[in-house]
């Protein structure tokens, strides 16, 4: 493909620059332990951002993913705690919790998608609404506090986040699989093609016999499912959920998608770009922790500057042909 020019390489250049910067600041940066940490923690936002890539590519948006994750984590914990006395501290209980998170994600995604496609409301408004709803519900379920997984279950479940094959932990593996499947779907599946077509021009897609509403609905359902999957890996990490879980994940996920080169108005989806975007965002945080800055109050400013710079790199074209 001759489309792999500077424009597409932009995010990768930014990523490499960050890696070099990190390695220069602190030699421990490239140690396997740090790499494992960074990759594993990117996994949550990463999987969500892969789903978000499809939603955005089809011309949609989802602001609810962070609250949805908190809500699903809460519900899964409640479910596991509820059956634990009956089933015992047992993988069955955990599988049930996972099932609840995934099915819940499916249902939540479906709700968003149905409101967008059937009730024809702007995705921004729909998901702003459900964002408030999910956030409220988890706060209410937790009675303003924290929902925690029973400690027996926590111990059993823990390896799902911390274990893996050598230093490649399960979240890394899952994220990689999701990213590869996502990239494959965007490029090589009919679904991906239709998602791009809808984002590019919805009327054309409809005239070509594509079931536009179904495809759009599916993007939200897919995203919901991936949020559920992220929750499955998140719960063993912290073992709890509260009203402050997943705050601002939606902004991070959307930012990753856009940094990766997917246009916010839809039409072109780049899943691998999203992965790079997620890594860039995680690395910024990591690097800020590696070095001692003037003031921690300025972290946000440095983060902001780097995000903008990362994107400047990929906007090198366009000045050419049309102004």
């Amino acid at each position, binding site marked *: 493909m001759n489309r792999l020019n500077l424009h597409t390489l932009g995010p990768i250049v930014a990523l490499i620059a960050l890696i070099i910067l990190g390695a220069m600041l602190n030699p*421990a940066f490239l140690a396997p332990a740090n790499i494992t940490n960074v990759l594993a*923690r990117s996994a949550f936002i990463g999987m969500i951002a892969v789903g978000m890539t499809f939603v955005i590519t089809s011309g949609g948006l989802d602001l609810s993913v962070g609250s949805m994750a908190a809500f699903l984590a809460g519900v899964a914990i409640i479910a596991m705690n509820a059956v634990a006395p009956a089933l015992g501290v047992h993988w069955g209980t955990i599988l049930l919790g996972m099932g609840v998170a995934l099915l819940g994600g499916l249902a939540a995604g479906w709700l968003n998608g149905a409101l967008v496609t059937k009730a024809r409301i702007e995705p921004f408004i729909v998901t702003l609404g459900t964002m408030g709803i999910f956030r409220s519900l988890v706060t209410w379920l937790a009675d*303003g506090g*924290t929902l*925690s997984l029973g400690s027996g279950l926590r111990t059993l479940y823990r390896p799902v986040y911390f274990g893996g094959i050598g230093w490649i932990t399960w979240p890394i593996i899952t994220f990689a699989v999701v990213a590869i499947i996502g990239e494959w779907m965007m490029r090589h599946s009919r679904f991906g093609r239709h998602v791009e077509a809808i984002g590019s021009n919805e009327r054309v897609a409809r005239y070509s016999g594509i079931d536009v509403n179904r495809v759009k609905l599916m993007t939200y359902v897919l995203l919901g499912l991936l949020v559920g999957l992220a929750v499955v890996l998140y719960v063993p990490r912290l073992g709890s959920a*509260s009203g402050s*879980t997943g705050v*601002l994940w939606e902004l991070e996920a959307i930012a990753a998608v856009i940094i990766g080169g997917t246009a916010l108005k839809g039409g072109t989806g780049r899943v691998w770009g999203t992965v790079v975007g997620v890594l860039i965002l995680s690395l910024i945080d990591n690097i800020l*922790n590696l070095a*001692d800055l003037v003031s921690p109050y300025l972290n946000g400013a440095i983060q902001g500057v780097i995000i903008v710079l990362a994107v400047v790199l990929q906007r090198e074209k366009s000045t050419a042909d049309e102004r």
Partner: protein
Amino acid sequence: QDAEKKVIGVSIPSATHGFMGGLNWHAQDTIARLGKAYPNLEFVLATAGDAAKQVNDIEDMMATRNIDGLVVLPFESEPLTAPVKAVKEAGKFVTVVDRGLSEEGIEDLYVAGDNTAFGRVAGEYFKTHLPAGSKIVVLRGIPTTLDNERVEAFQKALGSDVEILDMQHGNWNRDDAFTVMQDYLSKYPKIDAVWAADDDMAIGVMEAIAAANRTDEMWVIGGAGMKEIVKRIMDGDKQLPVNVTYPPALISSAIEMTALRFVSNAPVTGRFIIGSQLITPENAAQFYYPDSPF
């Protein structure tokens, strides 16, 4: 002397409201002070906007900064328990500040305020200073376990003679508290007192009361000892009879004691609970820190 370099990590929530701002200030101030006093101590400070970010920060300190000790104010107890435990298991010295972990016996040192006392002391003041049948309104913080503890203790200490008309979340935020208080004032023709539970919220609340010209009708009690409020108590402001301490400076004590462990080999362990005290016009001067941002 080239004593071996020791690194102490400090992980606290970021300055998203007044109390945390004060805590951030004290943490930085202490670090700067101790860094000068003990050249062989190095401090790593990280601030986090949510529990997951705080876990990341602690992971990074372990993986890349090779810390010997950790001072942590958990954003939330539950999610931080396992990561802090992992730090302890790696043989590091652990100091937990303010919010206890959900499992006992992990930390070497525990320095905290007393949330129950914070609510109780306020509740007792309301109980003793209001006639039976009085009506009050309450502004709550951001929904968290900590807020729940305070409010429960408050309600328990208050008893049933005084009626709580309403409890809404002001999120420890001046603007939110202002809005909620305005609406309370529209809704309730008679309010005898307000428990704002936090000095930031108290500021918003008083502004709303002043704008409604009902200043004479009710008094307000905040909490945590913000310098402007303490000043007004010192000056004998009728509307702010007292305040309940929850000093953000407790982070300083925690960092200092942890540092002591590394420079003196003194066996520093145990639990230090800094109780909540009532600030009254008489004792206010000793709670007044004009340099702190809080």
